[in-house]
């Protein structure tokens, strides 16, 4: 009977083990921190903006910042990121203006970007359907002899979809330089992990695709960094894809429209909040003596400022021209495209 060797289910950790990660100096550690703060600020402000009616329904990623920042920092600029709605603001880490992402959530066409400008694919709304895209891109780069790697972010729920499976299998067969990054936050809206899979751990799926699987503490930005860097190096050097299960917990509602009190264990949520990823990393940096009150305040101010500027820029944008409806549906549109009113 097939089974995974039990030891493999242990989470890789850095912060709680008080380890250090090779090659990460003071500068890099603080850059990581800046990224996490930027994401955290984006997220918290967005919830406020939603309440103020400035943006629409918004998918909260509070306590997911370590996964997003840790993974992105482990990549090269040439590498491609395929986000789900949960990573909507990940482009910030590639220099995308906050206003762009705010526009996306405002339903404004200025929120649609050219992926080639940042090597960040469009936000994928239908679950898991971007996994084959990320694999196709990585495979395509390899076929062209280029060295870029791709990473797809998706949730625990996504692993149930056929699209995940077909993409992961292609990745294995084509030995695509792709990283399948599963954010296992234990919930798919109201559906708990136990109703999503009977596997002992999601990482167990990796073996069925013939690819290495790694299980990492998703609240530990350095562990995520380390695991992703290793996967990216393997991919870039021809070693094929890796499945990363980052174990975390959704300590906020699924989105602004959701009320998790009906289904979630509130005590567990409180416990997770006390151990949330940004605070954990702050305490680590303080233990190393790299972060003090002043620097923390400065970094948080910078992020708050970026968001103030972002929302101001977004709101200064004129309302979109209705004729945009017909822009870009096709490169070379069929003559009937605009028909709809009365022939």
């Amino acid at each position, binding site marked *: 009977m097939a089974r995974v060797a039990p030891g493999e289910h242990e989470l890789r950790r850095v912060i709680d083990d008080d380890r250090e990660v090779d090659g990460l100096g003071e500068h890099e550690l603080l850059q990581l921190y800046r990224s996490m703060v930027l994401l955290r600020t984006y997220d918290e402000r967005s919830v406020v903006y939603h309440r103020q009616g400035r943006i*629409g*329904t918004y998918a909260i990623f509070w306590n997911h910042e370590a996964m997003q920042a840790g993974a992105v920092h482990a990549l090269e600029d040439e590498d491609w990121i395929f986000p789900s*709605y949960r990573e909507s603001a990940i482009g910030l880490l590639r220099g995308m203006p906050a206003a762009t992402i705010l526009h*996306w*959530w*405002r*339903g*404004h*066409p200025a*929120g*649609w970007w050219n992926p080639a400008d940042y090597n960040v694919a469009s*936000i994928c*709304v*239908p*679950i898991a359907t971007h996994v084959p895209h990320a694999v196709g891109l990585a495979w395509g780069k390899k076929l062209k002899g280029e060295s870029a790697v791709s990473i797809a972010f998706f949730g625990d*729920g*996504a692993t*149930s*979809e*056929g*699209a995940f499976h077909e993409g992961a299998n292609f990745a294995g067969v084509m030995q695509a330089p792709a990283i399948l990054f599963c954010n296992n936050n234990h919930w*798919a*809206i*109201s*559906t708990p992990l136990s*109703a*999503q*899979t009977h596997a002992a751990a999601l990482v167990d799926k990796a073996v069925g695709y013939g690819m290495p699987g790694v299980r990492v503490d998703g609240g530990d930005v350095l562990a995520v960094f380390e695991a992703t860097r290793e996967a990216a190096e393997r991919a870039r050097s021809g070693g094929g894809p890796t499945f990363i299960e980052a174990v975390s917990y959704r300590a906020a509602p699924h989105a602004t*429209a*959701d009320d998790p009190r*009906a*289904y979630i264990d509130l005590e567990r949520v409180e416990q997770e909040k006390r151990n949330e990823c940004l605070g954990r990393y702050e305490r680590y940096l303080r233990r190393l003596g790299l972060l003090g009150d002043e620097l923390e305040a400065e970094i948080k101010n910078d992020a708050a400022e970026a968001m103030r500027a972002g929302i101001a820029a977004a709101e200064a944008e004129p*309302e*979109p*021209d*209705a004729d*945009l*409806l*017909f822009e870009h*549906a096709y490169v070379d549109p*069929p003559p*009937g*495209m*605009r*028909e*709809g*009113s*009365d*022939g």
Partner: protein
Amino acid sequence: MAELLMVEAINDAFHVELDRDDSVMVMGEDVGRAGGVFRATAGLRERFGDRRCVDTPLAEAGILGTAVGLCMAGWRPVTEMQYDAFSYPCLDQLITHVGRYHWRTGGGMEFPLVIRMPYGGGVRAPELHDDSPETYYVHTPGVKVAIPSTPADAKGLLAAAIRDPDPVVIFEPKLIYRSERCEVPDGDYVVPLGKARLAREGTDVTLVAYGAMVPLCERAADELEGEASVEVLDLRSLKPLDEAALLASAAKTGRVVIVQEAPRVNGFAGELAAILAEKAILDLRGPVLRVTGYDVPYPYWKIEDTYMPSVERVVGAVRKLLAF
């Protein structure tokens, strides 16, 4: 009679039907613990247990595919697709199996399953929460399709679908899920599939619509008050289609405008126009006009109103037709 929102009427139908027939079960993403993201299935898990109201894994082909097997075990599964555009992964099971399995068994087994989903635009939602996919379903043999436009019809058509021996797909217009409270009969209530509803009588022109386009057409009729006597036909059911009602209204008014929010090319409005071109050619006093969505991806919501058929566009089409 209670005054209910559409989504409450649907919930009421579930309570009645699950109580009435213990082979009926409900399954889908978030239908149980959360009672559905629109709360259409609220309270069912508590009342009927987690075996008859099942939170499934996130896998639409798995939902519909296992529902086929559940039918073979004697269940009448009512599946929920969380949103219109998230139903597309189930199309393979729909076309290759759901619509063919009864035939494939030489009539030996029945597949009385229901697929229901919120559909349509105008709700200021992110991408892919706005589609009107009825064409993909109605074109598929072996499958019936209904689309209510009022709370009472939402209840009655769902009950009819659950009791129907064939697979039935119900599209629920999410734009009007909570728009208005209307009287809904208590308890057992069935609106038979295949009967249109004359939402408004008129003599000069017929507006044909279904779902969220029906109240829109009624507003257009209001707008045209004094100018033209407008009949509004709410199809309620696309397959079986109440062709007699369509042809009778066309014969009466001689002028037909069909309103559909789905993209125009090969949409269901085309089928209706084709039926008129075949069977009402001598009754028509002018062209059959279609007011529809466009052959473009459903847009960002800041400009979605430009995509959606509007009172203005419908009124414009009517005026054009009257002036023909």
